[in-house]
């Protein structure tokens, strides 16, 4: 019987986890412990529903409703002095909860505070673009779409950004294997030479653990230069490092290493 491999999460798993291991938590603090954050949270709460808020590692995390994202961002920018959106991306929780968690990392330079807005969306749910509030969201949202397939509504140029335009699949999904699916593995061969060339060029060698010193097709060693694919075994003598042929080169003065000077004084 073939070994069972879960299809919804193909990331590497630890080979051993103690059954009784309970992972500790990074401590969360109440928002009231920080005056600035408390005031900000109050302002957000006055207009929008906040499902959860806490402070973790000196930054406030606020969970909001995905429908309000555009309005919350406008509020943050216009009234609460959060003048930069430093990062925005998604986290894949499809296997566990059937959707993504999207976060927006904000920075206020006047208050010297950083804040994270988060919300949860279902897998096929679209979110509202905030690229008209913060221009930096433009590229961040494109990357989010490229990597996770999260559709962003109202975005001026919703296209892939990092992967080629004709790429299939969204690489950062947990269902996407690290070494790529079949499309990815043959992408360059298919594109340049055509599918017929697959048999000529051959599959990629993806075994990272394979180390073979005598493999002269995939490894090169200085001082042991051999031709591509030549046979090379243990007894082969080291090839001496030579910069010129012994018999000299036509029209070129032979290098005489005794004449060369080594500059030892680094101060010139």
């Amino acid at each position, binding site marked *: 019987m073939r070994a069972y491999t879960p299809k919804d999460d193909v990331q590497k798993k630890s080979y051993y986890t103690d059954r009784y291991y309970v992972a500790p938590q990074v401590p969360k603090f109440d928002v009231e412990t920080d005056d600035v954050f408390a005031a900000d949270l109050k302002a957000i709460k006055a207009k929008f529903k906040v499902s959860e808020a806490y402070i973790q590692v000196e930054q406030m995390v606020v969970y909001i409703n995905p429908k309000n994202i555009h309005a919350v961002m406008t509020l943050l920018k216009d009234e609460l002095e959060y003048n930069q959106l430093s990062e925005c991306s998604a986290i894949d929780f499809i296997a566990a909860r059937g959707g993504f968690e999207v976060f927006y990392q904000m920075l206020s330079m006047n208050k010297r505070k950083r804040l994270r807005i988060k919300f949860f969306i279902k897998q096929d749910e679209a979110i509202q673009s905030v690229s008209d509030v913060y221009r*930096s969201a433009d590229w961040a949202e494109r990357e989010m779409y490229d990597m996770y397939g999260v559709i962003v509504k109202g975005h001026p140029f919703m296209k892939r950004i990092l992967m080629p335009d004709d790429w299939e699949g969204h690489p950062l999904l947990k269902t996407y294997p690290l070494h790529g699916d079949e499309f990815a593995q043959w992408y360059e061969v298919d594109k340049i030479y055509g599918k017929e060339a697959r048999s000529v060029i051959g599959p990629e060698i993806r075994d990272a653990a394979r180390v073979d010193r005598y493999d002269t097709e995939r490894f090169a060693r200085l001082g042991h230069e051999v031709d591509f694919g030549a046979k090379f075994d243990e007894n082969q003598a080291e090839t001496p490092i030579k910069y010129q042929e012994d018999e000299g080169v036509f029209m070129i003065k032979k290098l005489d290493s005794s004449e060369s000077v080594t500059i030892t004084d680094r101060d010139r």
Partner: protein
Amino acid sequence: MQQPNRLRPFFENITFDRDDNELVLNFGPQHPSAHGQLRLMLHLQQEQIVKSHPDIGYLHRGMEKMAENMIYNEFLPTTDRMDYIAASSNNYGFALAVEKLINVEVPRRAKVIRMLLLETNRLMSHLFWLATTALDIGAMTVFLYAFREREYLMDLVEDYCGARLTHSAVRIGGVPLDLPDNFLTDLRKFLDKLPENIKDYEDLLDQNRIWKMRMENVGTISKEMALDWGCSGPMLRASGVNWDIRKEEPYELYDEVDFDVPFSDKGDNYARYKLYMEEMRQSARILYQVIDMYAGTSPELMAHAPKFISPSKIEMMTQNYSLQQHFVLVTQGMRPPVGEVYVPTESPKGELGFYINSQGGPYPYKLKMRAPSFWHTGILTDLLPGHYIPDVVSIIGTTNIVFGEIDR
């Protein structure tokens, strides 16, 4: 047999010569002054750019995916390859984020060494920036001079960690090695010379007519635009925002050293150039102070946190339990608590942040790198229209983008 018609680029559907006199120009992805693999689609009216569309991803190597499949320590060398001009600053950013997550404090000597590495890396990066930008504009001499100085720093870092480019010189919880014998004296020698060298560059460039014509009032970024596009570091400071994470949210020993943050309100290429020069001087000033700090520190290099960080070599060799612990940490990896952190640091290019979401496993559940260059490339969309073709090169030059960290 090769079939030439198979090579069909994506932009083939654009008519390159149009009726309305608009020309579409493809720049890159393999252009010597694109600082890597930037591709720009420029719409031109005569010589003037009316629309620009940066196309990135030609160096996307899947680092974030790799992170999800690697234990924390295993991932550290990969961060070298992000901003490969200043590798240690990436190592440091990642290590600091993990340290915040597992909440360990690094011993003081390790902090001093990290500061030395961070600032030498900043110098290296700025020198490299000067060299390449000058070369792009046509000042070959400055390129040769700046590379000469950079090689000295490379030698120093090589003395410390053995690699010229890909340092991996910081570990989670400290640094792996103490400084080699002559490091501090050599560094001091270099720093003593540096003001002269900087003056050489400035003598060559500051009043140079060509340099000024291609730099002054070209690529002006307003304050609002810089903030809006998420710019950071020199790009933001040249536009009149005095924001340096080293000063505002100090990490490591930056609150103990005395330095100024230069900023300018011009926002053009020339302002950025002046800023880089001034930052080099400030880095030298920081380094002098850090060199003096080194002497009084006790020799511990790694933090003591047996649950997360391997014990020292001596403990490992003498105590059975430490050896076991080390074995578990190497084979299975540390398991940080459940939670998330976002830790920003000021890399030579700007705000380098690492967002880590841990679900209690030995692999990060999600690792997002906030690379400054990504946003500095994004701003080209709005910055280039209105400029002329030759300006493109000088603007790309002064944005100081590195593709390893844009595409990751």
